[in-house]
Each structure stands twice: as structure tokens, then as C-alpha cells.
């Protein structure tokens, strides 16, 4: 199928009659995913949004339930968002991150109804990257500029129009509803050519990385790697696969609600016990855990690296602690398992 670029605003306006539509919108010097008020707001020739779109399915602050206390008991009402949504113009790396998050919110024992309900009711329409940034290393972590993991539809930019590839049944339905026309052979060929030409310039070798992480927990390299880290949450909040959260109450009188907020493993209080004991005492342990979680623990649990190579942590870090360099250093480190 195919859709002309000039038809995109009208196409989005059409979708908005039935769905909440989220797309990248220009805000200041960067782009952010926002709910559209008009189809014309969407920009598709962006590099990466400042903050990933994971917040559409897993908001930074989210009400879990409200309650009110009565003399007899407590009335608890869950707040589940079941609206139909379309995320338009999501990059393949971000879509892949959502496929990875599915593992977390639907684990071997529990299901998270907030995330999973939104996930079931959301169609992800991706746009491939003809021109990846210098910080994009998606191709090194099992993804690529036209990866379809997690997507329902993929748009390939061929200049005047997008060639639309169907990835899932959900995507097929959406395309059929919107009445997209079939793409001719020439357009198909153009799309294939674009895919071939797009090159990811940045690479980080991950050969043997997992094997090294299996054995280097006690290596001295961890004392050095985190040294310049300030311990803020810029990397975790701009990471599409980070999923840690905190749960707090907000109440006035007998009524209140329980809220969950994104949290960061880089903060000291994240793991602090009530007794004051902290299993991850310093920045060293916290940074090690972050790297281990993404490149070892997640692999052990779900057979995939919890990094999609979007490069946001590289751009957003206030001290330029570059994960590509960290991984290269780790690959060169010694094995040390003794405590």
C-alpha cells in the first residue's frame, strides 16, 4: 500500500475521529510524542524524539486506583484506560522497545492490566529511518532502521510518498479502514532501494559481551566506568526500555489515589532498606546494575538485550557517559567472579 506525503494530515485527521492519535510534534528545538489536536502537527522527518514514546503505554505518572474510606470499609476503584489509540510515526527502535517491555509487564506470574490494556488497544504505525543519526547503533543490538519488531504497520519514505508494509493483523485492519491504495511495482522497488541504502554509521561490537558480563561482576573496571556519572536519571528516563517505577499515595481526608511514577535505578533511595542498609551503596553498584540489567539479566530472563540502540542516553547525558564506550571497555575487561 502507499500513502502520499501530502495526504498524511488528512489521513491523521480521519484517524482522530476514532482514535487518540499520538505523533512526534515539534516543541522548541526537539520533538516529543504528543496527542495530536490536528493532523498537520505531526512531523515525520525527525531524528529521534527527546523522550521515548513508552510513556504512551506506561505514563511517567499514572493513577492506579482511587479510594474512599467509609465507616464500613474502603471503596476501591481501578482506573484503567481502555481508549483506542494510534501511535503514528514511531521509529523502529522505539517500537522494538515496546516489544521488549511486553516481557516485563506480562511476566511468568503476573500481568499488568494498565500497560497491557493500553497495549492491546494501541496500533503502532512506524516510519523507517532513511537517515539514522550518528548516535544510532540499532544495528548492533539486533535491530535496524527498518526493523518491524513490535510494529503493526511500517512506512518507508520514498520521497513523495510512504510505502506501507503490513506487519500485523491490527495493522491490516487499520490500513483497510483508512482505505489505503495498493503500491505499484515502481514504489515497491523504490522502498526496497531506500532500505538498502540506509546505513547505520555507528556500531558497537557486542560479540562476547554477554559472556564477559557473566564473569566480570567483581572486576575492577566497574570502579572506573561510573566515575564521571552524576547519578541523575537522565539516561533512565530517556531510555525506551527502562521500566522501573515507584508507587505512592496521594490523599486528602478520606479520599485519595495510588499513583505510580517512573523511578530510576541510579537514585540511592531506589534500593535503600527501611533499616538504612543499602544493597547498592554507591554509584559503582548502581551503574553496574544498570549495565548488567540491560545486557545480562534481561538476556538471561528474556533472551534479548534490553537496549534498542536509540542513542538517547548518549545525547541526554550531562557528562557524555557514552554507553558505546562503556560496552567497548567492558569487552576488554578481565573475568573476575570471586568476591
Amino acid at each position, binding site marked *: 500500500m502507499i500513502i502520499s506525503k501530502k495526504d498524511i494530515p488528512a489521513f491523521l485527521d480521519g484517524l482522530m475521529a476514532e482514535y487518540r492519535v499520538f505523533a512526534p510534534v515539534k516543541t522548541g528545538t526537539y520533538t516529543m510524542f504528543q496527542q495530536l489536536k490536528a493532523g498537520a502537527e505531526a512531523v515525520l522527518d525527525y531524528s529521534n524524539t527527546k523522550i521515548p514514546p513508552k510513556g504512551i503505554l506506561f505514563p511517567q505518572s499514572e493513577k*492506579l*486506583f482511587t*479510594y474512599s*474510606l467509609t465507616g464500613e*470499609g*474502603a471503596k*476501591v476503584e*481501578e482506573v*484503567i484506560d481502555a481508549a483506542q489509540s494510534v501511535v503514528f510515526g514511531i521509529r523502529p527502535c522505539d517500537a522494538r522497545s515496546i516489544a521488549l517491555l511486553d516481557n*516485563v*509487564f506480562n*511476566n*511468568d*506470574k*503476573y*500481568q*499488568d*492490566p*494498565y500497560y*497491557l*490494556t493500553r497495549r492491546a488497544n494501541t496500533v503502532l504505525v512506524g516510519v523507517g529511518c532513511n537517515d539514522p543519526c550518528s548516535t544510532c547503533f540499532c544495528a548492533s543490538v539486533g535491530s535496524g532502521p527498518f526493523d518491524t519488531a513490535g510494529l503493526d504497520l511500517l512506512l518507508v519514505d520514498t520521497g513523495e510518498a510512504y510505502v506501507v508494509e503490513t506487519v500485523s493483523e491490527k495493522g491490516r485492519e487499520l490500513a483497510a479502514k483508512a482505505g489505503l491504495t495498493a503500491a505499484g511495482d515502481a514504489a515497491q522497488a523504490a522502498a526496497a532501494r531506500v532500505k538498502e541504502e540506509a546505513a547505520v554509521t555507528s556500531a558497537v561490537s557486542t560479540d562476547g559481551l554477554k559472556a564477559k558480563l557473566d564473569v566480570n*561482576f567483581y572486576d575492577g573496571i566497574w570502579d572506573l566506568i561510573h566515575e564521571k556519572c552524576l547519578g541523575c536519571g537522565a539516561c533512565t528516563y530517556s531510555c525506551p526500555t527502562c*521500566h*522501573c*517505577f*515507584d*508507587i*505512592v*499515595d496521594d*490523599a486528602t481526608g478520606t479520599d*485519595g489515589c*495510588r499513583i*505510580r511514577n517512573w*523511578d530510576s*535505578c541510579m537514585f540511592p533511595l*531506589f*534500593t*535503600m*532498606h*527501611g*533499616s538504612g*542498609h543499602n*544493597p*547498592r551503596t554507591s554509584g559503582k*553498584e548502581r551503574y553496574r*546494575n544498570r549495565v*548488567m*540489567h540491560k545486557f*545480562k*539479566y*534481561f538476556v*538471561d*530472563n528474556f533472551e534479548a538485550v534490553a537496549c534498542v540502540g536509540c542513542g538517547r542516553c548518549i545525547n541526554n547525558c550531562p557528562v557524555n557517559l557514552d554507553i558505546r564506550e562503556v560496552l567497548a571497555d567492558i569487552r576488554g575487561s578481565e573475568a573476575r567472579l570471586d*568476591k
Partner: protein
Amino acid sequence: MKNPYLPLPMKMVKNFTETEDKLIHSFTMEFLSEEDEKSFAYLPGQFAEVCVFGKGEAPFGIASSPTEKGFLKFSVARVGVVSTAMHLMEDNTMIGVRGPLGNSYPIERLKGKNTVIIGGGFAFTTLRSLATYILHPDNRGDFGALTVIYGARNPGLLLYKDELKEWEARSDINLVCTIDRPVDGWDGKVGFVPTVTKEVAPPADENTIAIICGPPAMIKFTMPVLEELGYKPEQTIMSLENRMKCGIGMCGRCNVGGKYVCKDGPVFTRAELNQLPNEY
């Protein structure tokens, strides 16, 4: 889809000051209906998130045993927002409980075996649940000999004093309580848990399992003693504590290596822990 974040409303019927220093209170909570109770089927070793509406929720090991019907019991030290609110709570207040969460002590594995329970301080809660479970007339025949070694700084800090007295009188449990320093009026053992364990714990054989729960210093010094007595890592069972929020393996903070204490634990064998980093 069952929502694992929703608390079950319960009535806290008794707020009881457990220790002489008043830092630990035990709370008895009643289910509001039989259905609620049925939905909360648990085993010794599991924990639950107790929620004080308006303050938040915090995880505590369940101190009651599933053989005790109609209520749940928790023993809670006053450390944070939720536990402080609980300590100040009057009897018959509404409270929420979310669970049961986590795995349990390996009841099936313990059947037909001799069990040594070693506890220190106020980490005796889920151990009390296990001992009570084993001692119940319906279950006692399924298990072998039961030894319980329980230490505290002084007699006033022992939890469940009335019950300890009852246990002492029974012939189907060997209870050894110990305190750190001699005090007038105490005719039990005096000495730290590791030393006492060395004296009274049965040497390990194929048929014995040790379950240990207590403050880090006690664990650190008891482990070598158990090794000396011949307990293999597979025969030594521990219950971990880490800071938790969700209790269902999603919020990310309680991990020890790739395992989540809330979802994959809190009960691990020493052999399993040897494979993991020491972040607990």
C-alpha cells in the same frame, strides 16, 4: 485480567505491642468475607503488601499460618511511613492487603524430613508461620523432627512470648531460645545464635534441612557453623529482604542479579544464592 495492584480491604482488629522496646507491634487483620479469605490462599514464607490508605503500602512477611483461619498476622518494626502509620493505628481500622506474594518455604520438600529453624531478632515472623504450620495436628505427622533456635538481644525482645512458652512444653518440638547477655530471671541459654547453633543443631544428614532468617551479622556467622555441621548449600534455605514496591517483578528495585526477590523469592537456597551477586 486480575489486577495485582488492588488491595483487599481488611479490618485490623488488634494492634499489639510485641516487644518491650515497643518498636515491634503485631497486627491481627480479619477478612471481611469468606470469599476474600478463599482468594488469599497462602503458604508459610510468603509476604503481602500492607496498605494504609493515604500513606502507601509496604511489604511484610506473613506471620500467621494458613492453618489459622479467619485472619492474617503481621509483626512490623517502626521504620518508615507505612509502619509508623500502622503503629499509631487504633484497633478496628480499615486497611488493605495485597497478596499473597512471592514463593514460600518448600513445604513439599520438607515433608518427611527433619527441619532446623534458625531465627534472630524480629526476622522470626515467617519462621513462626512455618513452625505453627508444621505443629498443626493435621500436618504434624507429615514432618520429621523440628528444632527451633531463636535468639534475641534480651528476653524482652523475643516475639510471640506466650507461644514460645507453649512450644517449650510440647514434646514434638525442640525449642532453644537464647539471649545475648545474661539477665536476672532468664533460665534459658545465653550466647549468640551461631554459638548456640553449634551446640544444639543436629548434624546434617540427607534427611535434614536448615532454614535461616535473621539480621545480616547473624547470617554471616551462622553459615560457617552450618557448613561445619555438614549442611550442603542445597540444604540451607534463606529468606531475603530487599526494598520492594510492586511485589510482582515489574518495578525493578529488588533484583539480586537477574532474580527478583519479590517474584522469584523471597525464599532461596544457599546454592541458588551462590550463583547470584551479593546485592542484598
